[in-house]
């Protein structure tokens, strides 16, 4: 009884969706900072025939249960990794192919270090174990840059939009429905977004990389300012036996900028 209740709690808490082939190998997609499982929208169709596809939102994002947000638990990637392991346990998945974008790449790394038995393969899309430069390590950002992001977040969640809207020429022919959709898909609580930004961009999980025992593919985008090539090289270098694949798509979110290529590369690299 209690385990059943707990299982429902986990699935609701993380807004878990299971689709695709029930007999297929489990393929779990995890979204990064800033959005929700919606970023996988265009990639998922490539896998539903052969794989059992699992999508979820981190607590605080998308359709998750924000009342489950605990600042202490989510003050590091460990809390998110614990949630991921709970999802895998509740669905009783093994030999999982885990595809993690951005911060979720590192969440997958941490989870696989804590319990490698669930994982068959890690696919890390644009991973960065530490964003802030330190000593000889290049993460690509300074503490001031991260403060700038927090300012940017606050500025954009202050609620100016409503007050300023009449001042700015809008695009009248776009239906307002779009805004509501995003409100739902990429909904985010400003206080949680700010904290998640801190945890994402100020964490240091470099030491976890060397502990990875699960076969790993690192997917590096071209011209990614969030996780530059030098960071992809570092991750590849630290995870013994990992493969590094450089995508032609630019930017930080290939699932949106070139879902076809991303899907093809994931498929080609699943061992």
């Amino acid at each position, binding site marked *: 009884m209690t385990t059943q209740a707990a299982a429902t709690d986990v699935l609701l808490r993380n807004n878990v969706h299971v689709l695709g082939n029930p007999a297929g190998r489990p393929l779990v997609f995890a979204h*990064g*900072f*800033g*959005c929700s499982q*919606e*970023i996988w*929208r265009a990639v998922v169709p490539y896998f539903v025939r052969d794989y059992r596809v699992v999508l979820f939102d981190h607590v605080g994002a998308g359709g998750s249960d924000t009342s489950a947000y605990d*600042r*202490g638990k989510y*003050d*590091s*990637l*460990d*809390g998110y990794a614990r949630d991921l392991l709970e999802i895998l346990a509740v669905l009783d998945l093994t030999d999982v192919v885990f595809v993690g974008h951005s911060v979720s790449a590192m969440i997958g790394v941490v989870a696989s270090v804590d319990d490698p038995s669930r994982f068959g393969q890690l696919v890390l899309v644009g991973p960065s174990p530490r964003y802030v430069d330190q000593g000889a390590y290049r993460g690509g*950002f*300074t503490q*001031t*840059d*991260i*403060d*700038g*992001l*927090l*300012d*940017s977040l*606050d*500025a*954009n969640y*202050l609620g*100016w*939009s409503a007050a*300023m*809207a009449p001042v*700015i*020429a*809008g*695009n009248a022919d776009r239906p307002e429905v*779009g*805004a509501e*959709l*995003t409100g739902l*898909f*990429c909904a985010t609580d400003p206080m949680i977004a700010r*904290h998640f930004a801190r945890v994402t*961009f*100020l*964490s*240091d999980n470099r030491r*976890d990389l060397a502990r990875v025992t699960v076969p790993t593919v690192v997917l590096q985008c071209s*011209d*990614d*300012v*969030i996780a530059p090539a030098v960071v992809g090289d570092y991750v590849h270098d630290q995870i013994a036996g990992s493969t590094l694949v450089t995508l032609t*798509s*630019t*930017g*930080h*979110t290939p699932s*949106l*900028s070139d879902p076809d290529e991303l899907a093809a590369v994931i498929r080609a690299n699943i061992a």
Partner: protein
Amino acid sequence: MTLVAPFEELYRQAPCGLIVADADGVVLEANDTITEWLGTDRAAFVGSRLPDHLDAGSRLFYETRHMPVLALQGEVREVSLTMLRTDGTALAVLVNSTVRGDAGDVHTAIFDASERAEYERALLESRRLAESSEIRVRVLQASSGAFVSSTTEEQICGALLAAASEAFSATATGVFLLDDEGEYVLMAGVHPLDGLLPKSAPRASDAALVEDKTITVSVRDVDGPYTALVAALEAQRLDSVSIIPLLRSGVPIGVLACFFAREHDFDTQFADLQAALSRQAAQAIVRVRLQNELERLALHDQLIGLANRSVIQDTVGWGIERALLTHRPLAVLFLDLDGFKGINDQLGHAAGDSVLVQVSDRIRAGVRTGDTVGRYGGDEFVVVCEDADREAAASIARRIREAVAARLDGIPDPLRVTASVGVAIYLPGDLVEPTNDELLSLADSAMYLAKSAGKDRVAFLHH
């Protein structure tokens, strides 16, 4: 007649920047307004990537939030970003973007928001300040209330744990008290390093208590004295532990330990809140221990069942400190019995003692949980009431006065006593806070006012 030229001019010189970019953010076309704002020209601007013209913070926001929402929704409105001019200076802008056509080209309008940005920055600053002080006040008020109403060490440790958990977002928090053997006993929360620290290893908690300051040990302190602690933190994938001493008048009581799973940069507000919480908790623990001790003594002599003069002075001092922290009023009641000397003289000291015992029971019954009742000397009593304004103090004083005036057991009519009560109220504000002696003497003065106005009444004085 042709309208093309005016339209083109409107586009080129529009009062906002206009850009067409491809789905990857590469600029395909731009008007003169935006290139002039940025101090560049069209030839250099076309072909560059939009995020390359943003400052680092905005670039992070653009890639993680702006771009995904644009791709999923087809448009974003009124996004606040900071662009960089070619000379490196910042240009605050508001951006509207819409995806057009099959190729997914992005049409963007950019509005200069420099003035708004300054106003916004000021607003942000004040909002952050207000938020952090709001958390501070809320945590202190809640903990102060919980500490005052606690009657056991366990309750106080639980209240400290709750306050620390809310205030510091630590991954794990533990409250430890020293036992008689000098061992730390976990009273509330968790000890994530339990069993991982060898007995012989130097203890950071001891150092925190000896030096009377917070000690933070992180996994980066490999050359420090706490190698076993560092190894244990690493084993539990923790980054650091902050150990806050619980001390009262130099006597070590225990520690509050906050474990963090990632590197934190603690500011002075954080340190102030830590210090305030640990001071409050230490005071509360001392009070509870004292009360337990007094209760024990009271078994032997009921008259001593009340706090003595020096405990009262301490309690008033702590009350002032907490009032300052929580911005709640503090009331001190000073009671002098009317008619006591007559009973003592006529019926003897035994009868006088019986009156004092009965009166102290009645005073205790009339106060609130958490108030401290003490005998100040002879037939003088003091009640310290935290978080009590004039109205609350008046009703406590009235209950006491009525209870005291009732007929006394073993004392023949018409002999009875009444109480003249002086109430001093301290409301934290702009004035310099009083010392404990000043507040007590203010209450004493109020009591004299009550006496000279005819006895058996209450008088108030405000600090």
